C-alpha cells in the first residue's frame, strides 16, 4: 500500500532518498522533497485530524501556508504544537499526529536556539514565483542590493506545481537559471524557507526563516529594512461552499495539481471536479494525463469555457455546465459527490445524483495574497470579475506584482514582476531594463464567476453543514445567525462567528465570508469589505521572537568594578534597575537578619564599607550651570561654594518628589550631581528635556559620568582612621575637611576625589576613583580597615541605617504623589528663588492641605515583630464595617540593632499631628498597635556625623 499514490516518475522529490516517518502511530515512507502532506497523500492518507467544534474528520485542504484544516502536532525530532501538514518538511524520523483543531505546548523546555538578523536592501522581493524572480532579476541587473525571501524550500512558487513550459523547457529550468544568476550577484541575498510575516511603516518587514534542526539556530527572525518592496506573494485558491464540503479528499484543484507536478502524487483514483472558474480545467486534464479517472467536471456556470471544453472532450472527460455539487457522502474520506442541475441566477437546484469518487476538487477562483500590501497601508478593493479583493491605489515604495495583484497567467506574472523590478530600481535612480520574457504556453486568460455558496438541499437545518471556515468549524448557518442577530459589520460578524480567527487567519475563508454576508444582507461584497489583515501572516513561535534574549541575556546585567569581590565574599545581590548590588554579606551560619544586624552595628560602632558606584553621576558645566541647577532643584545651588557639597531635591512640574542626591561644586562653572541608582537615565533625560526645550538660552552642558567613577562609602566612627592609613596626603581633620565638602588627593596611590557625605548619620567618606581602579582601592581600604574590624555592608544595611535617621528613599518612601513638605523636608524648598520646577504647584490648595499623607516613624507595640512593608494603617483597634477608612501605609520597615526594636517609616494622613498616637497595622488577620513617632529615630542632633 505504501506509496501507492506516487507516480513512478515526475515531480521534484528524490525517489532514491526514501524518508521514514510515523503518523498517528503508523510507519510510512515518503521521499526527500516531500511535505508531510504530500507524503501522507502518497500513502493514501487523507484524514489528518478532526474539526475543533464538531469533531468531524478533516483532511488536507491545500498545498501551502493557507491550509485551514490539516493541523498536526509534531512529536519528533522536537515537540511543536499546531503546524500545518502542508508546510512541514518531511525528515527522517519525523513523528506526528493529527489534532482536533488545536494543539498543546510541550511540557519539556525547548532546547533549540533562535536568533535574529537585521538586513538592509534596496529592493526586497517577497515571493520567488515567476513575478518575484522576474522582479529580482531586473533589480539585481540594475545593480540594486536585493533580498529575495520565499516561504518554500526552493524558489519557483507556482511554477513548481504547474507542469508548465517556459521557453519550451520545463519551467524549473528557468527557475534554476535565474536563481543561479541571482546567487552570483555580489549584493543579493536569497532566503528560501523564509516567510515574510509583517510589513510595517517605512518598508520595515519582518520574516521568519526556518533553518531546520541541523542548523545552529533553528529559526531566525529577519528584520529587513527595504527602500523598495516588491510583493509577489501569489494567490490562494478559494474553496466552494456546499453541504458536507469538509470531508477529507476534498481540496482545491490547484492543490491537487501541485501535488501531482511537485510531488509526483495523484491524490485520488477517481475525481469529481467542481468549479466556477476556468483554472480547474488544466488540473483536471493534468490528473487525467497522470492516469486518474475524472468522473465529471461540474461547472456552476451556464456555459463551460469553449477552449477547455474542447480539451475535455478530447480526453472524454464529461463536462456538466449549469450543475453544482450540492453535497457529499463518506465519513473519513469522500466517497461520492452529489451533483445537481443548478441555475446560478435563480439559485434553484435540481435533484441530486451521487457520483462515486475518492477525490473532490473544487475551485471558486483565486484570492490574491494582499496581506502584506494591506499591512503596508495599501487599500484593497473588491473586483467583481475576479470575485476577490485586489490591491488598489498605491503605496510609495511598495509594488504588488503577479498573482498578488490579481493576474492569472504565467505570462502576465512574468511581465508584471519585471515591471515592478524595473520600477523599484528606477525609483532608486538605477538604470533598469526588463529582461526578455520567456515564452509561455498559449492558454487563454482564465475567467471565473464568483459563487459564494451553493443552495443547501437540507431544508431542516440549512447551512449547518456548509463550512465556510474549516479552522473554526464556522458554517453558513453561523453567519446567518450573526446577520439574523442584527450584525452588519464584517468585523462584528468575524467576532460573533469566529470566522477568520483561526491559525490561518482566514486565508481561504475571508473573502468567502464577505460574499456570503453580502448575499445575506442583500448588498455587494464591496460594501461589506474585509476584516483587517494583521501580522503575522503565518503563526510565529514566541521562542523565535524572543531569539537569544532569554536566560542570562534576557536583559542587561550591570555590574560594578568590585562585583567579583562581592561574589567572592558570598553576597547575595539585589536588583536595582539593571544593576546588581550586594544585598548583605552573610558569614558562615548567619541568616539575613543576623548579617544585617551585625553590619548595622559595625557602622554605628566601628567602620563599614559599601560599594556605591551605582549612583548616577552627571557633570554639569557652563556659565549658566548655577542658574540651571537653581531651576531644577527645589533648594538653592548657586550659593554653594567650590569645594562644598549640598543635598538636593528634584521635583517634577506637579511638585512631587522626583529624585534626590548630592550636588558638588567642582569649579566656578562646574558641578557634579549624583542621582539615585535606578533613576540616573531618567534624571539626565529630564534635565536635557528642560535644557533643550524650555531653557535654550542657558549655556550648560551635561555629561553622564556614572561609570567614570567607582565609589566606595566608608562609614562609622572609625572611618577617618581607616582612610588616614591610605590617604596620607589628604588632611582629614574636621576643621580642614568639614562635613559636606570634598577634596582631591591620592587614595591607595590612585588619584581620587574624597567627599564627606553621610547616608547613615555617622562620620563617613565617599572615595571616588576611576572605574578601573575601583577593585584595587576597595581592597586597599578593606585591608587598611582590618585592624578596625571593617565590615562590608550591602543595600539592606544601608536602608536600615538611613531609615533610623529618617532619610527617605525616593521610589520606596515616595510614589510620585509625595511633596517635599509631605516628607518633612520643607527646609529643602527654597522660599527665595523666583522659580524652580515644581514651585508653582506648591501654591495649589491640594498641596497645602494639612491632612495630606506625611512621612512619620512607627514603633510597633512591645513584643510585636517587623511590620510587613505595605501594611495598611487604620484608626481603631477593631475593624469597622467596610469601607474601612485607611490612614496610610508602611513604606519601609526593619529591625534596628541600635534601637533594640523593630521600627518603620510610613505615609500617614495628617501624620505629623498624630505623633504620639497609637494606630493599628492590619497584619494578616490581626490589628497590631503601633505608635506614631518622629521619622528621625537616632541621633536627632546630628552629633555623630563628625565622629
Amino acid at each position, binding site marked *: 500500500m505504501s506509496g501507492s499514490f506516487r507516480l513512478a516518475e515526475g515531480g521534484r522529490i528524490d525517489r532514491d532518498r526514501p524518508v521514514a516517518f510515523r503518523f498517528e502511530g503508523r510507519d510510512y515512507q515518503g521521499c526527500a522533497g516531500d511535505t508531510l502532506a504530500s507524503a501522507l497523500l502518497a500513502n493514501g492518507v487523507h484524514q489528518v485530524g478532526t474539526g475543533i467544534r464538531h469533531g468531524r474528520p478533516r483532511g488536507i485542504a491545500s498545498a501551502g501556508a493557507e491550509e485551514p484544516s490539516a493541523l498536526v502536532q509534531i512529536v519528533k525530532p522536537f515537540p511543536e504544537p499546531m503546524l500545518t501538514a502542508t508546510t512541514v518538511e518531511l525528515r527522517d524520523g519525523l513523528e506526528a499526529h493529527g489534532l482536533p483543531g488545536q494543539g498543546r505546548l510541550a511540557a519539556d523546555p525547548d532546547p533549540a*536556539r533562535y536568533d*535574529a538578523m*537585521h538586513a538592509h536592501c534596496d529592493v526586497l522581493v517577497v515571493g520567488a514565483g515567476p513575478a518575484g524572480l522576474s522582479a529580482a532579476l531586473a533589480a539585481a541587473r540594475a545593480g540594486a542590493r536585493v533580498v529575495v525571501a520565499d516561504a518554500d524550500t526552493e524558489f519557483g512558487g507556482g511554477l513548481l506545481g504547474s507542469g508548465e513550459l517556459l521557453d519550451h523547457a520545463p519551467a524549473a529550468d528557468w527557475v534554476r537559471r535565474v536563481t543561479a544568476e541571482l546567487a552570483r550577484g555580489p549584493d543579493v541575498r536569497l532566503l528560501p524557507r523564509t516567510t515574510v510575516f509583517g510589513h510595517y511603516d517605512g518598508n520595515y518587514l519582518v520574516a521568519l526563516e526556518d*533553518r531546520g534542526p541541523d542548523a545552529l539556530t533553528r529559526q531566525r527572525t529577519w528584520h529587513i529594512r527595504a527602500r523598495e518592496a516588491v510583493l509577489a506573494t501569489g494567490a490562494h485558491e478559494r474553496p466552494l461552499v456546499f453541504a458536507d464540503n469538509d470531508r477529507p479528499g476534498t481540496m482545491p484543484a490547484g492543490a491537487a495539481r501541485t501535488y501531482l507536478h511537485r510531488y509526483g502524487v495523484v491524490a485520488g483514483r477517481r475525481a469529481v471536479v467542481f468549479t466556477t472558474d476556468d483554472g480547474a480545467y488544466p488540473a483536471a486534464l493534468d490528473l487525467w494525463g497522470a492516469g486518474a479517472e475524472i468522473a465529471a467536471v461540474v461547472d456552476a456556470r451556464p456555459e463551460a469555457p469553449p477552449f477547455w471544453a474542447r480539451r475535455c472532450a478530447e480526453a472524454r472527460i464529461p463536462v456538466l455546465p449549469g450543475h453544482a455539487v450540492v453535497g457529499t457522502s463518506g465519513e473519513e474520506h469522500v466517497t461520492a459527490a452529489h451533483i445537481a442541475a443548478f441555475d446560478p441566477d435563480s439559485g434553484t437546484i435540481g435533484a441530486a445524483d451521487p457520483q462515486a469518487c475518492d477525490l473532490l476538487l473544487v475551485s471558486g477562483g483565486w484570492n490574491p495574497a494582499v496581506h502584506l500590501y494591506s499591512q503596508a497601508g495599501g487599500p484593497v478593493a473588491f473586483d467583481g470579475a475576479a470575485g476577490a479583493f485586489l490591491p488598489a491605489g498605491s503605496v510609495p515604495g511598495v509594488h504588488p506584482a503577479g498573482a498578488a495583484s490579481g493576474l492569472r497567467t504565467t505570462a502576465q506574472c512574468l511581465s508584471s514582476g519585471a515591471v515592478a523590478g524595473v520600477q523599484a530600481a528606477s525609483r532608486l535612480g538605477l538604470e533598469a531594463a526588463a529582461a526578455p520574457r520567456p515564452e509561455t504556453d498559449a492558454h487563454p486568460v482564465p475567467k471565473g464567476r464568483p459563487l459564494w455558496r451553493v443552495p443547501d438541499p437540507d431544508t431542516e437545518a440549512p447551512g449547518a453543514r456548509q463550512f465556510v471556515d474549516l479552522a473554526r468549524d464556522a458554517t453558513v448557518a453561523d453567519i446567518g445567525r450573526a446577520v439574523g442577530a442584527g450584525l452588519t459589520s464584517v468585523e462584528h460578524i468575524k467576532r460573533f462567528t469566529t470566522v477568520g480567527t483561526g491559525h490561518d487567519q482566514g486565508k481561504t475563508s475571508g473573502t468567502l465570508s464577505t460574499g456570503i454576508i453580502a448575499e445575506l444582507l442583500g448588498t455587494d461584497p464591496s460594501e461589506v469589505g474585509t476584516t483587517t489583515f494583521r501580522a503575522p501572516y503565518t503563526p510565529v513561535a514566541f521562542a523565535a521572537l524572543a531569539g*537569544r534574549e532569554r536566560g542570562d541575556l534576557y536583559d*542587561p546585567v550591570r555590574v560594578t568594578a568590585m562585583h567579583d569581590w562581592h561574589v567572592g565574599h558570598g553576597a547575595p545581590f539585589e536588583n536595582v534597575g539593571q544593576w546588581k548590588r550586594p544585598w548583605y554579606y552573610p558569614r558562615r551560619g548567619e541568616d539575613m537578619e543576623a548579617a544585617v544586624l551585625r553590619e548595622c552595628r559595625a557602622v554605628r560602632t566601628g567602620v563599614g564599607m559599601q560599594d556605591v558606584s551605582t549612583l548616577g553621576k552627571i557633570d554639569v558645566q557652563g556659565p549658566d550651570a548655577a542658574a540651571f541647577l537653581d531651576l531644577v532643584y527645589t533648594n538653592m545651588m548657586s550659593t554653594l561654594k567650590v569645594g562644598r557639597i549640598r543635598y538636593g531635591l528634584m521635583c517634577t512640574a506637579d511638585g512631587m518628589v522626583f529624585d534626590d542626591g548630592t550636588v558638588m561644586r567642582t569649579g566656578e562653572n562646574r558641578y557634579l550631581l549624583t542621582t539615585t541608582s535606578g533613576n540616573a537615565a531618567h534624571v539626565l533625560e529630564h534635565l536635557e528635556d528642560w535644557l533643550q526645550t524650555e531653557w535654550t538660552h542657558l549655556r550648560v*552642558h551635561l*555629561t553622564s559620568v*556614572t561609570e567614570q567613577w567607582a565609589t566606595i562609602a566608608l562609614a562609622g566612627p572609625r572611618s577617618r582612621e581607616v582612610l588616614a592609613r591610605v590617604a596620607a596626603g589628604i588632611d582629614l581633620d574636621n576643621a580642614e575637611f568639614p562635613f559636606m565638602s570634598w577634596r582631591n588627593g591620592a587614595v591607595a596611590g590612585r588619584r581620587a576625589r574624597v567627599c564627606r557625605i553621610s547616608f547613615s548619620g555617622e562620620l563617613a567618606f565617599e572615595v571616588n576613583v576611576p572605574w*578601573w581602579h575601583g577593585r584595587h582601592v576597595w581592597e586597599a581600604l578593606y585591608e587598611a580597615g582590618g585592624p578596625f574590624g571593617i565590615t562590608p555592608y550591602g543595600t539592606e544595611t544601608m536602608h536600615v541605617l538611613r531609615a533610623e535617621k529618617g532619610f527617605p528613599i525616593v521610589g520606596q518612601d515616595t510614589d510620585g504623589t509625595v511633596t517635599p513638605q509631605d516628607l518633612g523636608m520643607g527646609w529643602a524648598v527654597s522660599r527665595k528663588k523666583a522659580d524652580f520646577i515644581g514651585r508653582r504647584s506648591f501654591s495649589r490648595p491640594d498641596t497645602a492641605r494639612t491632612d495630606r499623607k506625611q512621612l512619620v516613624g512607627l514603633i510597633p507595640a512591645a513584643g510585636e515583630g517587623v511590620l510587613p512593608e505595605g501594611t495598611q494603617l487604620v484608626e481603631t483597634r477593631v475593624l469597622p464595617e467596610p469601607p474601612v477608612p485607611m490612614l496610610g501605609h508602611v513604606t519601609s520597615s526593619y529591625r534596628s540593632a541600635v534601637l533594640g526594636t523593630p521600627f518603620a517609616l510610613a505615609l500617614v494622613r495628617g501624620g505629623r499631628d498624630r505623633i504620639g498616637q497609637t494606630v493599628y497595622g492590619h497584619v494578616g488577620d490581626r490589628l497590631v498597635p503601633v505608635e506614631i513617632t518622629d521619622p528621625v529615630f537616632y541621633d536627632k542632633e546630628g552629633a555623630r556625623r563628625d565622629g
Partner: protein
Amino acid sequence: MTADLYGASPLAARADALARHSAPEGVQGVRIAEVPFTAQVALRVDPRGGAAERIGTALGAALPGRPGQVARTDRVLVLGLGPDEWLVVGSEGTAPELQDTLTAALDGAHGAVVDVSAHRTIVRVSGPKARDLLNTGCALDLHPRVFGADQCAQTLLARAAVILLCRETDPADFWVFVRASYARYLADWLIDATEFDG
C-alpha cells in the same frame, strides 16, 4: 607599571572567554577582544564658533561637521556624536594632555571637556563575519558603502547603548564603545552570538 597603574579593565575577566570564541587570525570568521584603557575625552562646544576652529587646529584635524563622521590624526580619533558633541579618543595615558589641549584651545569659551576614559571600554569586533555578527543585534545598515571606514553611530547592540565605529571595511574592523557596567553583558552576548551560522 602600566598594568599596575591601570588596575583592571572591565573585560579583564572575560579576556580568555573572548579569545576562545574568536576565530584564529586569518580564518574566515570573527575576532572579539577588548581594547582597554584608551584615553577618552567628551567634548561639547558650539561648532560655529572660533573655539571649535581652535580645537581643530590644536588636534590637527577639524572637528567633524556631521554626527557620524570621524576625523583621524596620528594621535587621536574624533568621533562626531551630535551637532555639538564629540568624543576624542587617544592612546592609553594621554587623557590628561588631551584635556589640557582641549581646555587651552577653548580658551574660556563656553564648552565642556570631561574625562570619560573609564566610563566606557572598547570591544573590537573584526573579521569577515564581523558585520553579520553585529547585525544579529544591531539594526543599522553596516554595508561598506553605507557605514564605511571612519564612520560612527550611537546605537543599540543587543540591549546595550553603544557607540559603533567602523575602523576598516575589508576585512571588517569595528570598535564598540560600551559603558563599563554593561561591558560584561555585551561580552557574554557577543560570545553567545558567535554560535551562529551566518
